[in-house]
Each structure stands twice: as C-alpha cells, then as structure tokens.
C-alpha cells in the first residue's frame, strides 16, 4: 500500500560536490527496503521528484541527492523544520535473499546511497558484504565513513586516480578480486552495463528513468526487457541482470 505523509526535515547538509544528505522524520513512515524510492512534492515544481532511499528505520528517512536540476536545487536550500509531502514506499527493492553467502555491492556516484541501505540489510542476514564505489574525482566521494561504520572498507575507483584504483569500478574489482555469489548495483547505465559484461555472475541492477506518477499507473517510465515492456517505477527499479536489454 502506497501512502503520502508529511515528513519534517531534521537536517540537510552538503557532504560532497553538489551532493547533500537530507534526514527526515515521520512517525507514520511505512516500511522501506534497499532499492526502493520515495517521491517528493517540491513547491513550485509540477511532478514529484523520485529519490532512492539511503536508509530508513524507526520513522527516520535518510536521502542522498545531487543537485542536477531545479527540483534538487530547491531541495538543497531547505531548512530543518521544513515539511515535505512524500509518497512511499515505491518500487521493488533488491532481493536480499538471492544472496547465498557473500555479495558484491557496486555503486557509481550517488548509486552508493541505496548500496549503504542494502549493505545493512545483507549484514543483518549474516551475509558477507564487499563494496566497490566509483567516482569521477575525490571531491565526489560520499558515504565512505558510513560504510566503515558497518565494518566495511569500500574499494574505491576514481576516474582521475585521486583516490583508490584509477579507472572504472571494474578496474577496482579486477585489482581487489573480491569473492561473491551475487552482485547488486546502482549507478550510471554505462557503468552497470560494463559491470554486467565484466562478470559472469548473476546480479541485480537498479535502473533509472524520467518518471510520471512513480506508482505504476501512468506508464511514463517504460523500459524494454527480455520478458517485454516493464515499468521502471513499479516492476523495477531493480531488475535481474539477465532481464535487461542494454
């Protein structure tokens, strides 16, 4: 069941280049899982803004967002105490039970945000978690300390080589050789496509598309899959690697 509630901004701080962490509070917040998203009404904007969940527990919601357009620019100026109309839970999250023993989590840029939530869920199931994060350059790094707080040291790749392995996430995986029986990923399409080609192991990818309703009834965010047309918002955003037509 989808619901809308007013959430109160507790904090909203810049953490990296153009990247903000917003913490919100709502006692009525529904249960949310890694890979799901929420849809936020923003004053002066027509459509809600879909933002993936970085963490959600006990009435507290954490979102990481990058200022990429007018909607997120408005969000970046929001003060603590601001009330936001948020629709949740939306989309199908990652399937944690598909992991047998150990997982590889790969986040590109802000794709790191759902990976943090997923790492927590996997650890709670007693799984081993390897994390690889890719960024263009050092000032974009996010959530590194949060992963360390979970006892995970993320393998980092940067395009300019300023931190970790120079190059793509696949270069960091090739260098560090983590063991895993499934991978989970969220990030730019070319990165996820390269990752799927790089590894022969099964995985799940979180896709992104411009959305209308966010809840599966407007058909604004379709994608082709091997089992026909799907709605990114409702049938996804997480799809099995084998389903995706790149």
């Amino acid at each position, binding site marked *: 069941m*989808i619901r*809308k509630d007013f959430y109160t901004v507790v904090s909203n701080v810049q953490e990296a280049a153009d990247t903000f962490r917003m913490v919100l509070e709502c006692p009525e917040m529904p249960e949310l899982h890694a890979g799901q998203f929420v849809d936020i009404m923003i004053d002066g904007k*027509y459509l809600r803004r879909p933002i993936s969940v970085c963490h959600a527990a006990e009435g507290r919601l954490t979102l990481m967002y990058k200022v990429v357009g007018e909607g997120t620019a408005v969000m970046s100026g929001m003060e603590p105490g601001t009330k936001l109309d948020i629709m949740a839970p939306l989309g199908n999250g990652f399937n944690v039970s598909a992991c047998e023993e150990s997982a590889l989590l790969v986040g590109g840029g802000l794709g790191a945000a759902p990976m943090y939530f997923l790492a927590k869920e996997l650890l709670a199931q007693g799984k081993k978690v390897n994390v690889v994060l890719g960024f263009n350059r050092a000032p974009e790094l996010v959530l590194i300390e949060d992963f360390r707080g979970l006892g995970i040291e993320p393998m980092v790749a940067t395009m300019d080589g300023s931190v970790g392995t120079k190059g793509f996430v696949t270069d960091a995986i090739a260098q560090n050789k983590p063991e895993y029986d499934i991978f989970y990923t969220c990030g730019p399409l070319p990165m996820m496509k390269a990752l799927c080609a790089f590894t022969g192991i099964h995985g799940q990818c979180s896709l992104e598309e411009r959305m*209308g309703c966010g*809840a599966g*009834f*407007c058909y*604004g965010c*379709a*994608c082709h899959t091997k089992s026909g047309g799907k709605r990114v918002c409702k049938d996804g955003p997480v799809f099995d690697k084998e389903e995706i037509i790149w």
Partner: protein
Amino acid sequence: MVKDLSVNLCGIDMVNPVVPASGTFGFGLELADSMDLNKIGGISLKGTTREARYGNESPRIAECPSGMINSVGLQNPGIDVLVEEKAPSLRRIYDNCIIANISGFSIEEYAYNVAKADKCSEIDIIEVNISCPNVHNGGMAFGTSAESAAQVTAAVRKETTKPLFIKLSPNVTDIVSIAKACEAAGADGITLVNTFLGMRIDIKKRKPVIANKMGGFSGNAIFPIAVRMVYQVSHACKIPVMGCGGVSSAEDVIEMMMAGATAVQVGAENLRNPWACPEIVDALPGVMEKLGIDSLKDIIGIIE
C-alpha cells in the same frame, strides 16, 4: 444541509461527477489497495488498442511550468485483456461508472474494439479517443477534421448501444464544428479536451527532453483553454460534455460544470497526487456550501 453531488450522464446515475481521465489512473486496479475507489464517480480506463502496444521510447515525460508533457504512445495490453481481465477485475471491487477508452489507427480498428467493448457487461460507457494518427491517411489524427471525426463516430455507433462519448483533440482550428459533426454522426456525448501538442528542449544537451520529440501537454496551465472549449462545445451541442483539462480542485470541478460539463475528468493531477479524485470528492460539499450550491445538477451550464 446534505449536498447532492450526483449527476446523470446519458441515463447513468453517477454518485458524483469526478472521473480520473484515461491514461492517468491505469485500469483503476493499480491503486485499489491505496484508496477507497468507490468514492470516485467513474473511472476512465487506460486507452486500449486492438493489439498490445509497448508505446514510445523513453524518456516519455517532461516537466513544465504548471504542467507536464507525456508521450507514452498508448502502451496497453490490447482490447481482449481489457474486456476479459481488466474490466471484470475492476467491477469486482468498484461499484460506480466504468468507462472504457478506445483507440485505433484505422476506422476498422476503432469499430472492432468498440464491438468488443460493447459485449463487455462491466463497461458502462465507451469513450473513443480520436486523437490517434490515421495510418491510412498520412498519420493525420482522426480528430483534426470534422469529416474524419464523423467517419469514426458513425463507424463505432453501429457497433454499440452503450452510451458513446467521443474524446476530442484540442489541437484544431474549430472545436465546435468537430463536436457538432460527432453529434450528428450519433455520439451520445463529448469528452474534451485531450492534451495539447507540446515540446521541451534540454538546452544543455541540445536535444528534445522527450524521445519522441513532442508529446501531449497537460496540467493546470491548460485549464482556462479547456474551460473555454467546454463552454463553446456544450453550448453548441445538445449532448452532454465530460470536461477535462487541468482540473485539480473542487473549485475547478465547479467551474467546469458552470461552463457546461455534466461530468469532470481529472488528468495530470493524478500523477502528482494519486489521491486527487477522492480528495476532490471530499472537498466538494464544503466548497458547495460556501458558494450556496445544494446540488451540482443545478450549476451545469449556468453560464449563458
């Protein structure tokens, strides 16, 4: 006193005039567990073609000031799924007016689809969308000329005894002549307006926001144009009008009805707020009280 929200549309008693517009509410089933559907007077289902369609490539959505552009391209599971699965499933949980929205790319396809919908006992009203391109006539939309609009109307009229609404495109020079042609060809009612053809360009990427370049513009921004067209058509035709275009509040519903609408469709607003229709129904009695309206039937077309 208790406010009377009911209206009568072509002999069908509706508990209220509020109807989610086709394409903005799926088949009603998607939101069934998130709201009380039975608060809504009628539901216009997702536009349906003969065969299942994927529709257009993504991106299909563009944000605009006070509105949005969509270019879904009639993604739907096909007429057989509508009449065999979707309409019966909705009827099991929904007591009010079910409106099937029918599309086609040829007159024969429209007639075929309407004949199928006619035999579906769960469907109360058939609404025919004539904004689709005619594949036999260079892709020009059926609804852009009085002649082709009348041809579609006459062809589908032969296939059904159910109340038949023709949904008009506003992208025309003279909406009244097209509405009158549909009325003369046997339509029982007119739904207007569909979306306005629009376009956005991403100035950083130097390319259209929407994969299909252009799409249908809807939302609050089109409300005054829709009110004008509802006013013109309802005063020129004897058949009832379902008003549509930019409606987002109980006040908008009342304005549309004063312009001449018997029922009022809510479109793009559902995409921002899936609960828009039940919220509008809940708000209507209070707004009617403030305006001294006891029955919505009393205000239909009161603007001379």
